[in-house]
């Protein structure tokens, strides 16, 4: 099973013990978690320099194959849409592959434009796209954006709502004390229409 975490930021530097929970949840499945995005090496300074881009490793992927005997993690510091165009990850398996977007800010005015080129590619693969949001407002803005950008081109897989496994720790926006959020407050999922 391949799990592509797109626009990875803080989650890519989480202790590997945390990520290992996935291996314990799916003990008989081989898992490959692939962190992709320009900020996917944030807070991982001791792992630099990145591997060179070579014929056998064209994206200079950082590979950790010892997370667990059944689980591998890889990191690519680049935009998913750049990699998608080369067909590097094809074929996609609509039942065993999955995209995960943690608080992507699809509809956020500062990041929306970065997802414009990506969205049609994600839909084209027909694999599930799991999204989370910091708050109800943040998540709804993403949903509205997808509705507007890809009208009629996707199926909803999981109705948007509060995530049963949101972070119980609240976080504060230092610039706006009224803005209280938490990691993965809400969750929803969709995919390209078949």
């Amino acid at each position, binding site marked *: 099973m391949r799990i592509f975490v797109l626009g990875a930021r803080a989650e890519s530097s989480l202790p590997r013990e*945390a990520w290992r929970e996935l291996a314990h*949840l799916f003990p008989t499945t081989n898992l490959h978690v692939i962190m992709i995005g320009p900020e996917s090496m944030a807070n991982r300074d001791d792992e630099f320099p990145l591997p060179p881009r070579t014929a056998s490793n064209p994206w200079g992927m950082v590979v950790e194959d010892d997370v667990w005997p059944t689980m591998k993690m890889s990191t690519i510091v680049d935009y998913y849409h750049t990699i998608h165009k080369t067909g590097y990850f094809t074929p996609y398996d609509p*039942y065993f592959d999955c995209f995960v977007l943690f608080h992507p800010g699809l509809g956020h005015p500062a990041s929306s434009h970065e997802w414009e080129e990506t969205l049609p590619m994600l839909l084209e693969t027909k694999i599930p796209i799991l999204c989370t949001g910091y708050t109800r407002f943040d998540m709804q803005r993403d949903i509205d954006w997808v509705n507007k950008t890809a009208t009629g081109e996707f199926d909803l897989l999981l109705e948007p709502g509060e995530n049963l496994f949101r972070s119980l720790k*609240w976080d504060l926006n230092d610039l706006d004390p009224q803005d*209280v959020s938490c990691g993965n407050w809400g969750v929803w999922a969709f995919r390209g229409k078949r």
Partner: protein
Amino acid sequence: MEDYEEHMKICDTLKEINEDEHDLRSGRAFPEFQLGAPQMAEAAVNLSNWDTYLYTREFDAINDNRAMRHATRLLTYPVTIGSVLHEFSPYSIAQEKRLTPEGLKSFSGSSIACVRTGMG
């Protein structure tokens, strides 16, 4: 002040955030970050909510609210994914369980994948 009650709720949350942040930087030992061991094949994980999850995964963090806040801040990333893809997902096509018929189709593959196959 008409929003007094809301205001008090925000104050409580702000206080909690502040105390959590201080605690994280206190330098104390953090047993809540000693994460789980492999799940025994005969003991099913209960993905109903954080309480049942941490309990069935035998996390110490379950015994203290602050420890739970710290631990869930990390665990939310893998467990959010797992909770949607797992055969014991709390999301289903039953009323108000949020999974759509299309979702059932898409996620059936990953949930079949975790059915025990005699390993473990």
